[in-house]
């Protein structure tokens, strides 16, 4: 069961604003999904190693060799608020 407070906490971590209606709805839906997911706990997983990657590859590193960067104009072309050759953002303080 995931309650309103938890939904709001998680939404804050995920930087998602939710309306009151959305909080209600998510609380119900997430609870039912999580209840379903929790049937995993039927399994004894104590001796099982986790799998993060299914295909084993090795040495997937790159040499320290420069590659071309994007042109400045291209880099900033899609910026919502370009300013002073950079990406402008509002102050962290309200």
């Amino acid at each position, binding site marked *: 069961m995931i309650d309103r407070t938890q939904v709001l906490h998680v939404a804050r971590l995920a930087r998602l604003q939710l309306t009151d209606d959305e909080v209600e709805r998510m609380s119900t839906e997430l609870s039912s999904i999580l209840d379903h997911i929790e049937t995993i706990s039927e399994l004894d997983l104590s001796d099982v190693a986790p799998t993060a990657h299914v295909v084993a590859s*090795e040495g997937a590193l790159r040499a320290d*060799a420069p*590659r071309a960067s994007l042109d400045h104009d291209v880099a900033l072309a899609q910026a919502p608020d370009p300013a002073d050759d950079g990406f402008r953002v509002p102050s962290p303080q309200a």
Partner: protein
Amino acid sequence: MSTTTYETVIGLEIHVQLKTATKMFCGCELTFGEPPNTRVCPVCLALPGALPVGNAEAIHLGIMIGHALGCEIAPRMKFDRKQYFYPDSPKGYQISQFDEPLCAGGEIGGVRINRVHLEEDAAKTIHAGASGRIHGSEASVVDFNRGGTPLAEIVTEPDIHSAEQAGEFLRLLRTTLRVLGVSDVNMEEGSLRCDANISIRPAGTTELGTKTELKNMNSFRYIERGIRAEVARQTALLDAGERIVQETLHFDPRTERLTSMRSKEEAQDYRYFPEPDLVPVPVDAAMLDRARAAMPELPAARQARFEADLSLHPDTAKLLAWRSELGDWFEAALAASPDGVSPQTAGPLANWTTNELLTRLGGDVDPATSKVTPAAMAQLVALVTARTVTAGAGKEVLDTLIAEGGDPAQIVEAKGLGAVGGEDTLAPIVAEALAANPDIAERLRGGDMKPMGVIIGHVMKATKGRADGGEVTKLVRAQLGV
């Protein structure tokens, strides 16, 4: 009045920008002074669909650091995501290492190392608002040129117990990293950054007190002053019966004030999980061997060599070895010594370097930036050793070298600083001095050697300081028959 004495407990977290040609996870070149956002690509701007690929050289440098600090190197290089939202973190997470750091354990300068892990640096946020610091700013502009620079984070155990010890440790660590060639270790430019976790506890107790984190100090002096200020603050709080609040503090070296950085105070939940875009890379024997083969002589070993091979005094050896630029300059001078490399040449050269030269240049100055070349210093010391010039004249030559550079022998020649010595030249001057001071001569003859200085002074005056005091004394004794 403080009735309790406290023990200070400090652990340091040091971030070191690694000296690679390109960023940690993309091929953007790491050059300085470029216009904003010109060293960026889909990966380091976190464009949709872009994926990171680890820089092999950064891992190599990380292993070298591990070797230098005596760490255990992990069997594989595994990355995790550390998640937080901030404009300087374009992906919304930093690729870092959580439960399997590249290096664990180790020790340097009597301080145990907890871990060394690799991660990517944040971008630069330029505060476009009024005050320059975050508080009160209107807006910020982000420049991603240096975002994604490879970083090694070195975390110590809480083994440090004073501001001075912290400074000493950091100087040794910086030299070690500089000698390794893994970083520019320049605090002003941010390639070396240090946070300190500070707590105090009543002396003799073992339970750690509540710690505060002192962040973003950009010089060793500020770190020491910041730690002192924070220890004083915590002591005053405990003495007043108050509690210490766990918080992150900023030290302003101008005002000596500590301020709480509230914006970051919100309880963090980084939601670490294994980076699915990067398959762990085995750290194999070849990688370890390559890093070991690339290891230069480290400060501790250099100090030991200076003591054993050159018979330098431990303090002198440490000073030269722990300040690698000084050690390098000294060894270059030693190699140029006309009398060859031996304890006999090394001793005077080391003394002239650490005493005369450093005093004149100022303690922190790198002699390589002065007009005195190592070869000139070697020649000067050889002239003094051979008594071709006196120590006093030698210092005059050094003053000239510092002011103008040049060749010591030519300076001696041009300024007529050559020693006045030998019986033929000096004996008449000594005789003249005795004749001019009959009282003194009488006392000396009577066995009272105290006024010898007067005669030496007379001779020095007559020779413009180019005579050797010892030789003068010998001649006085000979002429007076004492």
